[in-house]
C-alpha cells in the first residue's frame, strides 16, 4: 500500500489567550540593575523577583530558576519550540516539567531573565505570578475534556479563573501562595491538597440541569500537610467567581502575615476549625454578591476546540515496532471520544532536552487532532486526540527521540523535586534518586505489573513536600543521618498516601538510607506479592495495612518496619564507602543549605 501523502501541515494552532505583558521584561531588567547597584533593598527585590516568576538558586545569587506558567497545562507546539531555544540560550539545554504544570528553566543568569521574559511574550506566555505570594499556576487535569468519567470539561473555567486572577490587584500581596486545581474526575486530579480544589458536577435544580462544582478548601502539602474540606454539596458555576473571591478575601484579611512558616490558608482553616471557616466563606460570599456595584463575571470561553485529525502519516506501519505493546499498555489512555487516545510522555523527573522539546512540538503537529499538548501533574506531557490508527507510527517517532519511555501511567514514573540540583533548601539529591528508581523499575519491567499500576513513588529533598511525597503510596523526603563519624543521606519513608476521594497523608514508616531506598521499595513489593489477595493491588494492600484492615502476616506498619529493618543498618565506611555518598556525588555527604524562599 502506498504511503498516504499528507496534504500540507495544518497551520499551527495559536492559543486563545495571550498571558504576557511585554513591558514587564524591561521593568525586570531595570530592577535587576538597580538591585546590583545596591539601590533596591534585597528583601524588596526578592519579592519582586518572585512575583515575576524567578526563584533563587542553590548557594548562589548569580542564578535564577524561571518558572513559566502554563494555565491548565495547555501548551502549543511553537511555544515548546521557543522554550527549547531559550533553554539552550540561557539555561542548561534542558527544561523541566513540574508537578504543577509549569515549565521551568534552571541555572539562568539573573541578568538574562528579562531576555527570557521578552521572548516568552513573543509566544504569549508569562512567568508572572508563578512564584511568590500570589495565585500560582491554575491547574486542570490533563484529561479534562477527554476523560471517560468526567461530567463536563472544566478547562474553560480553569482558564477563566487564571485570567481573572493574573495581575489582579486583589492577589498581589497575599499572606502566602495560593493554589487552584481543577480536575475532570476524582481519579485524575489533586483537588484535596490545594487551597481550592474543584470537581465538575451537574445538579438538577427545578427540573433544569445546572453545571457546578464540588469545591474543596484548605488542603495543601508542606512541612505540615492537610486534606481539604468540601465547602457545600454543590456550587453552581455562577457562584464560582464569588466563592473564589470570598475565600481569597478571607485569607487576605485573616491569614498569618507574621509567622512565615505557618501562613498557608490551610493553617488558618486548621486553627479556626473547619465549620467556622466554612461559615465565614459562605457569609463573605453573600457579601461579595450583595455589595457589587458592577457585576463582575468570569469570562468563560466554552467554544469547542477544533478537532481535526492532521494526517494519516501512514495507515500501514510496516511492522509493529519493538516494545509497542508495553508502551501502549503503560502510556496510553482511551478517551471518551471514540477512536481517540491520550498519550502520556514520561520524562525522568520531568527533565527534557531542547531537541526532545522540538520533537514533541513536531509530534503534536503530526498526531494531535486538537493541535496542542497538556502538561500533566507527574512531571509529564500528555498529547491527546491521537487516533487509534496513528499510535504505532507515533510510537516510532517517540522512540527516535528517546521519548518512548514506558510506564508513564504506572508506579515506575517516580516524581522527584529539584533537590540539591538547584534548590537552596535541599538536603538530598531527590531529583536524581527519582530517576534511579524509575530506571530500576523499567529495568525490572515492573511497569508491566498490573498489581503496581495504581501505586506511586514520590520523593522530596527536604520536608517541604515539593515532590508531594505525602500523597504517594511510597513517599520519601530527604534528611541527613549519622553513623559514627560519618553522615549519609537518609530519607524518611511514608506509606499509604492517596490523593483520590479517599485522600490521606502517608504514614511515617522508617528512615531509609539513600542507597537502600530502592532495595526497600523492592522488599515492600516482595512482601506484598507474598501476602496479597487474589485481586489485589499494592496500593490497596498498603491502604488496608495503614488503616488496620489487613489480617495477613503483614498487618501493620510495624510489621513492615520489622521486615525491612536489616536493610537499614549502616555499614562500616571501609566496607561500603558509597553508602555515605549521595547519588550524583563522589564525595562524602554533608548537609548544606542556603536561604530558602519558601515563605517569600
Amino acid at each position, binding site marked *: 500500500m502506498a504511503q498516504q501523502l499528507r496534504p500540507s501541515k495544518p497551520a499551527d494552532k495559536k492559543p486563545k489567550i495571550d498571558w504576557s505583558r511585554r513591558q514587564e521584561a524591561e521593568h525586570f531588567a531595570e530592577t535587576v*540593575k538597580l538591585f546590583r547597584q545596591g539601590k533596591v533593598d534585597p528583601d524588596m527585590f526578592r519579592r519582586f523577583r518572585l512575583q515575576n516568576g524567578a526563584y533563587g538558586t542553590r548557594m548562589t545569587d548569580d542564578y535564577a530558576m524561571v518558572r513559566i506558567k502554563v494555565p491548565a497545562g495547555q501548551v502549543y507546539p511553537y511555544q515548546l519550540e521557543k522554550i527549547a531555544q531559550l533553554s539552550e540560550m540561557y539555561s*542548561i539545554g534542558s527544561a523541566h516539567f513540574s508537578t504543577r504544570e509549569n515549565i521551568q528553566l534552571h541555572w539562568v543568569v539573573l541578568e538574562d531573565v528579562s531576555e527570557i521574559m521578552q521572548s516568552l511574550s513573543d509566544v504569549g506566555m508569562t512567568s508572572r505570578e508563578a512564584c511568590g505570594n500570589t495565585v500560582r499556576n491554575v491547574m486542570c487535569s490533563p484529561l479534562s475534556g477527554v476523560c471517560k468519567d468526567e461530567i463536563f470539561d472544566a478547562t474553560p473555567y480553569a482558564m477563566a479563573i487564571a485570567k481573572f486572577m493574573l495581575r489582579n490587584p486583589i492577589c498581589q500581596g497575599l499572606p502566602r501562595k495560593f493554589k487552584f486545581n481543577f480536575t475532570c474526575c476524582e481519579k485524575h486530579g489533586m483537588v484535596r491538597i490545594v487551597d481550592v480544589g474543584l470537581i465538575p458536577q451537574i445538579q438538577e435544580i427545578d427540573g433544569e440541569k445546572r453545571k457546578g462544582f464540588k469545591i474543596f478548601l484548605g488542603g495543601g502539602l508542606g512541612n505540615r500537610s492537610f486534606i481539604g474540606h468540601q465547602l457545600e454539596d454543590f456550587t453552581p458555576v455562577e457562584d464560582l467567581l464569588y466563592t473564589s473571591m470570598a475565600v481569597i478575601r478571607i485569607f487576605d484579611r485573616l491569614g498569618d502575615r507574621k509567622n512565615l512558616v505557618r501562613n498557608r490558608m490551610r493553617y488558618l482553616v486548621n486553627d479556626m476549625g473547619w465549620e467556622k471557616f466554612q461559615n465565614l466563606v459562605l457569609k463573605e460570599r453573600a457579601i461579595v454578591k450583595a455589595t457589587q456595584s458592577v457585576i463582575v463575571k468570569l469570562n468563560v470561553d466554552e467554544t469547542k476546540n477544533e478537532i481535526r485529525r492532521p494526517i494519516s502519516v501512514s495507515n500501514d506501519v510496516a511492522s509493529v515496532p519493538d516494545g509497542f505493546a508495553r508502551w501502549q499498555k503503560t502510556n496510553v489512555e482511551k478517551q471518551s471520544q471514540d477512536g481517540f487516545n491520550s498519550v502520556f510522555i514520561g520524562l525522568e523527573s520531568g527533565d527534557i*532536552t531542547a531537541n526532545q522539546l522540538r520533537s514533541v512540538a513536531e509530534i503534536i503537529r503530526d498526531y494531535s487532532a486538537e493541535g496542542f499538548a497538556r502538561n500533566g501533574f507527574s512531571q509529564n506531557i500528555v498529547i491527546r486526540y491521537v487516533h487509534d490508527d496513528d499510535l504505532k507510527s507515533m510510537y516510532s517517532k517517540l522512540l527516535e527521540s528517546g521519548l518512548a519511555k514506558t510506564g508513564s501511567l504506572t508506579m515506575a514514573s517516580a516524581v522527584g523535586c529539584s533537590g*540539591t*540540583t538547584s534548590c537552596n533548601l535541599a538536603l538530598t539529591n531527590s531529583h536524581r534518586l527519582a*530517576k534511579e528508581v524509575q530506571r530500576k523499575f523499567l529495568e525490572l519491567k515492573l511497569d508491566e505489573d498490573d498489581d503496581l499500576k495504581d501505586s506511586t513513588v514520590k520523593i522530596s529533598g527536604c520536608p517541604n513536600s515539593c515532590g508531594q511525597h505525602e500523597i504517594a503510596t511510597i513517599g520519601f523526603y530527604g534528611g541527613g543521618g549519622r553513623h559514627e563519624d560519618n553522615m549519609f543521606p537518609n530519607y524518611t519513608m511514608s506509606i499509604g498516601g492517596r490523593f483520590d476521594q479517599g485522600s490521606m497523608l502517608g504514614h511515617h514508616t522508617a528512615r531509609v538510607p539513600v542507597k537502600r531506598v530502592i532495595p526497600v521499595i523492592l522488599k515492600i513489593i516482595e512482601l506484598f506479592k507474598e501476602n496479597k489477595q487474589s485481586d489485589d493491588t499494592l496500593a490497596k494492600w498498603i491502604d488496608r495495612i495503614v488503616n488496620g484492615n489487613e489480617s495477613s502476616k503483614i498487618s501493620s506498619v510495624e510489621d513492615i518496619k520489622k521486615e525491612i529493618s536489616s536493610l537499614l543498618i549502616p555499614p562500616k565506611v571501609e566496607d561500603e564507602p558509597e553508602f555515605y555518598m549521595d547519588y*550524583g556525588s563522589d564525595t562524602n555527604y554533608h548537609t548544606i543549605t542556603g536561604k530558602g524562599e519558601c515563605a517569600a
Partner: protein
Amino acid sequence: MCCMTDSDMPVIDSKTLRQKIKENSIRLVDVRREQEYQQGHITNAINLPLAKLLADDSAEAIQKIAQDLGISDETSVVVYDDTFGALSSRVVWALQYIGHKDAKLLDVTFSQWKSLGYEISTEVPEIESAIHSININPDIMATAEYLEKAKENKNVVIIDNRERLNYLEQHIPGAINIPYRTLASDDKILRTKEGMKNLLKNRGISEDAEIITYCGSVGTLSGLAYYAMKSVGLPNVKLYVHSFKEWKNLEKPIDKQENANYWDLSAE
C-alpha cells in the same frame, strides 16, 4: 560606536554576497567537510576543511593556506560553514591574525542559504595560488599568560562561550558565561546589533571593556563570540584561541560552582 561603517562589520549579508559572486570579486571559502562540499556548495566557493587549519595554526601555515586558496593581501574573502558560524569565525580570525584586512563571515549558514533558494553548485572553481604576507596582528589574540595577567584588571571581561553545565563544572576564575547559542538569532548566525547590545547591557559589560573570549578547545565557539562582540563595535576584543583545553593542560587555576548537582537536571 556611532561611526561603524559597513566595511568594519565582520559579516556580509546574502544579498551583497550574491552581487559579489556575480561580479566575481571575492574569494568565497566553504568550511565544511570535503564530502559535504562536493555534494554542493555556494557557487564559486572553494573548500577549506577546518581540520586543515587546526593541524598547524602557526602564522606560516595560515599563510600557506591563504596562498593556496588564492588569497592575496588585497583579496576580499567571505567565509561560511554549516555550524552556526563557529568554524568560519575561526578561519576569518586566523586570516586577520596574519594581517589580512578584508575577511568577513556570511551572515547565514549553508543550510539557511540553501533554504533561501540561492545559488548552489557542485563545480569546483579553478584557482591560482597567490602571494600573501605575514603581518601579525597581536591585538586580537590572547595567550594563557596574557589572560592570567589581564584578568586581574577590573576593566577586563573574560567570557566563556561553552554551554552552561560545562561552565558551572569548571571555568577560568572570574570568567562569565555567555553560551554560544545566545549569540544567534532565528535566521542569522548573529543577533541583531540591538539584541546583542541589549544582552551586553543587561550583563553590565561596558563598551570600553577589554574582552577576552574562550571556549572548550580550539577557539571556534569563542571565535563566533569574538565576532559577535565585533559586530556591535567593541574596540578591544581578543580570542584566547587555545582556550580551556590548554588552560587545563597548563594546570592553571580553575573555578567551579560548588555544592549543587546541576548535572542531574539534564536530560542528556
